[in-house]
């Protein structure tokens, strides 16, 4: 039984390698193997602040984080309550405004998810993601 189970595990683990290697070879030229590609929509805090009132800040963090503090004037839009919050955001959105989405910190990806959905599902343009997120904003205010 134990030998059989080990054999099954090795067989499954080994079999998965074959198509994976094939796919990796197929994508070898277009895959950044050593370094994560930079997001072209990422924007620094300084740049976003220089845009002044044209910026519409969108907070993609969970409700409790937003309640604890957020960038002044920011509207909340997270994936937990997407439909409810989207309506509120679209009320104050205008085509000429630059939408800057942020989440907790550099590592979070809620802002990227929200930005992508705004582009793909809602069809908005001028969507950016704040580098460093809320953490960067707080650091700049200390």
């Amino acid at each position, binding site marked *: 039984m134990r030998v059989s*189970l080990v*054999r099954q595990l090795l067989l499954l683990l080994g079999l*998965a390698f074959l198509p994976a290697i094939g796919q990796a070879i197929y994508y070898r030229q277009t*895959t950044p193997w050593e370094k994560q590609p930079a997001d072209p929509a990422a924007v620094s805090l300084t740049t976003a602040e220089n845009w002044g009132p044209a910026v519409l800040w969108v907070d993609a963090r969970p409700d409790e984080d937003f309640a604890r503090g957020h960038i002044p004037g920011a509207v909340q839009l997270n994936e*937990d309550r997407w439909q409810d919050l989207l309506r509120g955001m679209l009320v104050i959105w205008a085509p000429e405004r630059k939408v800057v989405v942020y989440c907790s910190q550099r590592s979070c990806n809620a802002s990227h998810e929200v930005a992508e959905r705004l582009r793909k599902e809602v069809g908005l343009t001028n969507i950016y993601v704040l580098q460093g997120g809320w953490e960067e904003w707080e650091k700049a205010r200390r």
Partner: protein
Amino acid sequence: MGEGAAMKGGFRFVVRQTLAVIVGAIFIYAGALKLLDPLRFATDITNYHILPWPVAVRFAFYLPWLELLCGLALIFHRLFAGALLLTGGMMMVFIAASIAARARGINVSCGCFGSASHSLSFAGHLALDFALLAILFFLWFATSAERRA
């Protein structure tokens, strides 16, 4: 008495097979979605802050195939015990990583079901993962009991 036991055994078999097909199909679906966009999956892995990019991108090419293969093994009942162990292991690692990320204040997208999982909250994701894990445990113990009998 004999007939009743046979019916009970038959019912258990149907339940086990149905659950195996459901879980297998979920793993095939999840694997296939990731196969279509390995870089996106690599980004999702990196967001957990456990693996560096060079490792994450290699895993992103490998794990979806493993999920797909295990899903097929569960559905067609081939290499069944191995597939149960691997899928259970993957689920446990994923649940632990999700909880650890959340505890560190990282809002991660699991990347499990592509855009289909957008509407699920963190609690929803976790509930789904624990449900899958519970089914995998059930299948493991049911199959072990059957082998012993």
